[in-house]
């Protein structure tokens, strides 16, 4: 297992470097310059600014410099917020994003699993159909539409929840629902299918033949086996959730990383683009690693294939 994880970490580093390089060159293709009100600047000022940030060097030299700094842990300074370290900016923005992401993931997963299990156990009943309608809606309605509708009805019309901003738990409810909807929908559908599949397995009949109650059969024998494929979809789901957060943070004016990310692209703030992209990439890579390790924990057959050391 240790060797397996070691190998994985090396391949993660390579992935990370490839992402960094690709992002760097793609970013250089963006139109415009990082400086506001360029028309008010004189030629010399622009040259001076470009010199200061090393933007006059040929692109390969810039790339080389950036990678050198990156490997020593230096993400550079923001162009927009003069001289502030990118890592500091990410640090102060990460709080709301992480909170929102985790809350949506946890709430969404729990509700999704619950709905999926109920739907499978009450197969072909009203509950089953109801759950699947929710699931289809959750998948087919984009989360920014849900966000807008909630803002209009819950926020403006009925005044139940704050429309936007980030100032306490009440402010997290609507963004969480918007982000979690796709998690709930995806997990509910998968869990239902997997539960039905597992419930038809021979070992469930064996468990029933032992005289176990149906609750014991479901909890001890069905859910664990049904959740193995769920772990697999958790990876892509978390990734989707992060990208979903980018938009939702914009809509609800939440001072998170996603909002910073989107704005940095609009203003050509190169170091921030690089910093946030790399940060998100790193998160994705780690999530995928965690999913693979979880897989081994829950399914003994995979644990063994990974090597017993």
């Amino acid at each position, binding site marked *: 297992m240790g060797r397996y994880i070691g190998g994985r970490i090396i391949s993660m580093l390579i992935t990370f470097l490839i992402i960094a390089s690709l992002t760097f060159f793609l970013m250089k293709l963006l139109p415009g310059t990082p400086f506001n009100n360029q028309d008010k600047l004189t030629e010399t000022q622009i040259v001076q600014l470009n010199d200061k940030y090393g933007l006059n060097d040929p692109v390969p030299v810039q790339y080389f410099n950036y990678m050198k700094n990156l490997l020593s842990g230096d993400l550079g300074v923001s162009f927009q917020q003069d001289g502030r370290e990118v890592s500091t900016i990410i640090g102060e923005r990460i709080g709301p994003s992480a909170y929102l992401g985790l809350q949506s993931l946890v709430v969404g997963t729990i509700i999704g699993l619950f709905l999926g299990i109920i739907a499978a156990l009450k197969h072909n009943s009203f509950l089953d159909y109801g759950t699947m309608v929710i699931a289809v809606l959750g998948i087919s309605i984009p989360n920014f539409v849900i966000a807008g509708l909630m803002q209009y009805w819950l926020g403006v019309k009925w005044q139940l929840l704050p429309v936007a901003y980030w100032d306490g738990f009440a402010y997290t409810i609507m963004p969480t629902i918007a982000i979690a909807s796709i998690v709930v929908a995806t997990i509910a559908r998968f869990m239902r299918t997997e539960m039905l599949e597992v419930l038809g397995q021979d*070992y469930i009949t064996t468990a029933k033949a032992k005289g176990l109650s149906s609750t014991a059969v479901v909890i001890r024998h069905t859910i664990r086996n049904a959740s*193995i494929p769920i772990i697999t979809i958790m990876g892509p789901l978390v990734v989707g959730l992060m990208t979903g957060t980018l938009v939702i943070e914009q809509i609800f004016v939440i001072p998170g990383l996603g909002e910073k990310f989107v704005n940095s692209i609009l203003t050509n703030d190169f170091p921030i683009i690089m910093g946030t992209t790399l940060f998100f990439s790193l998160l994705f890579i780690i999530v995928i690693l965690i999913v693979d390790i979880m897989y081994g924990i829950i399914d003994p057959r995979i644990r063994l294939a990974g090597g017993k050391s």
Partner: protein
Amino acid sequence: MEKILEVNDLHVSFDTFAGEVQAVRGVNFHLNKGETLAIVGESGSGKSVTSKAVMRLIPNPPGRIKEGEIKFGDRDLAQLSEKEMQKIRGSEISMIFQDPMTSLNPTMTIGKQIMEGLVKHQNMSKSEAKERAVELLKLVGIPNAEGRVNEFPHQFSGGMRQRVVIAIALACNPRVLIADEPTTALDVTIQAQILELLNDLQEKMGTSIIFITHDLGVVANIADRVAVMYAGKIVETGTVDEIFYNPQHPYTWGLLGSMPSLDSTDEELIAIPGSPPDLLDPPKGDAFAPRNPYAMKIDTEMEPPLFKISDTHYAATWLLHEKAPKVEPPGAIKKRMQGMAPSEPIIGAKDGGKNV
């Protein structure tokens, strides 16, 4: 002899989109204490459904026990609530399934899977149950039981898994064991070992066994009595000797004739023509009539009753009626009946090594 289980006029149906499939249509049999009853028949004859009905393991919907009683002691299992039935399953009546590769939970250690029944039915503590699990693994012949009790099913071979399944079934010393084709998925040498194991365990524990199979070789090896099923009914029942030496139903002849034998090479195998009837719309009269070369006019009109041949031997065929012409089974089958030796194991059970 004491009857431990008695099934009377059992009907089991499945409601499908196409209509009601009458999988079991009035089955009667009983199981004596300490004996092995083999239920034989081809695929779709209703033997598995019958055994699952006794365990009340037929998924409902679509399946249901339409009528009939399943007398176990003074209780009628067909009428018990699910809660009461859970107390019987695994403790008084247990079941072994066909495919050991799929009948164990892949994510649970085999020890835990054996312990579950013990904890539930015998109120054992975890440590007591674990001790008993190790004992059971030894009993079913798994080497290094102390170590293997913590392993997962995928670490066992097919034959070893079937031993684990047997250990699970026998955990609470059940009075009745239903074995639903327990050797079908195993290769022949392992089959022999499993049959030998079942025979041994029956002697040690005095369990009564219902053995479902389509393999007459296995029947000869293990059964005391045989019930032959066709199209959801029992068409002939008798002791092993009666069924193998003096079969009366043309379907039983067909089964015997289509059984390959290792002893001689010059015999031809006789196939039963046609295929079993569609139980969505069971035929009028004798269900076997369309495939029966000896069918008479009455076979297509009226169902034959069970004719008594001896106290233990009954067959449902009009050929046994006093007005029916005397019919002899085909020569090849007669020869085979003489060659059949139910007292001797057909497969070399004793030769199989313990290493799987």
